[in-house]
């Protein structure tokens, strides 16, 4: 997570603001992002996922640097310490007001335990409070901590595990790289990738650019795709639509139908056999290769997708060279996965034989209920998928 901020304002070093009203303003400021939302974005629930900034280094006050955004402290206590006193973490942990931190501890065996946090302003203790007391039945707990005042700049964790000689306590910024939990309705989530129709400068300084791929809003218990545009100083440029994506330029869109899974599957009982496809997740695309001659394989979404109300599946990609078996290189909708590629096929399209880009539509307007979707390849060839969406 690179930022949590009020919708419609710039905070936390992020150099953009989100406009949440339904009607797009005719103009804006550079780096404004307009999201056509159905539900008002709640305060402090606007989050951005960014592969470059999510795992930022954290500088601790004692001069050490913890990599990968993981603020951690680990310690062992002696039998004497266990008997007479408490143990402090060696490091001060930098914290920010308004941010939630996730802590967890594990003990080598079930023991009574208390965990406290001392809050510091600079090098002065601001307050010390116990955040967890556990009875003798547990050897692990987790919870959250939020700095009590804006003047708190760092904390030290202390704990006492009665009679236990080994204890590990960790604390990390909550929601790093993940959806916030629990997810308040109205929350907006941006997925980002290595390319997009537009980029914005994520920081006021350093000129770090982020490539937004799609905007989603939490409505009920689902993430719904939303139309979103970025103002580049001159024009509004769309980077997200209300289409539901199954694959989007490097984003596997796990929230829609799970991940993409490769498998071997013969085209039919008349085919030469099966061989698992090689699935290479590259820079903004997914290359699918059948490496064996006269063998079939598929790459599919591993969870069935409800096609009720969906009229079209759109597939974009490219063929770097002519396909040698265009009849069996297909995008398929299966009512259930069977023994062969042709088993239980409700609809399909083929990609054609010539090399070049493709932008194809499959009519699914008469299909309802849950179906599996995926690509079938037969014979040695490679197909590159850039985008699969439902409309």
């Amino acid at each position: 997570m690179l930022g949590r901020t009020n919708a419609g304002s710039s905070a936390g070093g992020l150099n953009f603001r989100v406009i949440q009203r339904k009607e797009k303003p005719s103009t804006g400021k550079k780096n404004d992002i307009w999201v056509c939302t159905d539900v008002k974005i709640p305060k402090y629930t606007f989050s951005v996922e960014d592969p470059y900034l999510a795992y930022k280094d954290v500088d601790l006050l004692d001069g050490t640097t913890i990599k990968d955004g993981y603020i951690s402290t680990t310690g062992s206590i002696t039998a004497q310490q266990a008997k007479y006193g408490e143990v402090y973490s060696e490091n001060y942990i930098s914290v920010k007001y308004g941010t939630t931190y996730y802590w967890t501890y594990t003990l080598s065996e079930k023991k009574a335990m208390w965990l406290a946090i001392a809050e510091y302003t600079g090098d002065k203790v601001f307050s010390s409070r116990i955040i967890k007391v556990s009875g003798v039945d547990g050897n692990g707990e987790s919870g959250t901590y939020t700095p009590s005042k804006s003047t708190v700049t760092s904390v030290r964790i202390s704990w006492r595990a009665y009679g236990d000689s080994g204890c590990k306590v960790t604390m990390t910024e909550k929601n790093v790289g993940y959806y916030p939990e629990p997810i308040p309705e109205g929350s907006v989530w941006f997925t980002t990738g290595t390319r997009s129709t537009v980029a914005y400068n994520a920081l006021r300084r350093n000129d770090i650019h982020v490539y937004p791929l799609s905007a989603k809003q939490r409505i009920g218990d689902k993430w719904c795709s939303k139309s979103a545009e970025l103002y580049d100083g001159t024009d509004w440029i769309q980077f997200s639509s209300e289409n539901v994506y199954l694959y989007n330029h490097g984003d596997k869109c796990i929230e829609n139908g799970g991940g993409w899974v490769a498998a071997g599957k013969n085209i039919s009982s008349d085919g030469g056999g099966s061989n698992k496809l090689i699935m290479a997740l590259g820079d903004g695309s997914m290359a699918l290769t059948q490496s064996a001659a006269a063998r079939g394989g598929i790459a599919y979404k591993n969870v069935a997708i409800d096609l009720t109300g969906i009229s079209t599946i759109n597939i974009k990609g490219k063929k770097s060279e002519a396909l040698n078996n265009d009849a069996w290189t297909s995008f398929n909708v299966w009512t259930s996965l069977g023994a062969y590629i042709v088993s239980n096929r409700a609809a399909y399209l083929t990609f054609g034989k010539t090399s070049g880009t493709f932008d194809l539509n499959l009519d699914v307007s008469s299909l309802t209920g849950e179906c599996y979707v995926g690509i079938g390849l037969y014979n040695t060839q490679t197909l590159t998928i850039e985008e699969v969406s439902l409309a």
Partner: protein
Amino acid sequence: MIIYIDTYYKCHVTNDGTMTAVETDFFDGKCDAYVEGYRYIPHGLTWNSPDGTVFTGEMVAPWKPLGELDIFQRAYEQERYQEIVTENAELLEAMAAMVDDVYNQDLGEMEE
């Protein structure tokens, strides 16, 4: 099997004289009603739907609700199953009669 497509690429099992014949194995084992609920766009051809979406062949997709077509297909398969059961019963009956005939013939010859 051979099917016929009209100008909207809808499938038919008989040609009214204006249709194009297409060979495909997608509909093997399917009943007429199932076939006629589908659209088949041959390779290289395109169909513009009323909402403006362009579909390029080869594409095979139902234009009638698939659930409805499945009902026709299940009824057809049930009917085919009953036909086969009946045929089997008739075949068994004929075989039993043949065995009886041979037995009676042998018995007659032994008595002679």
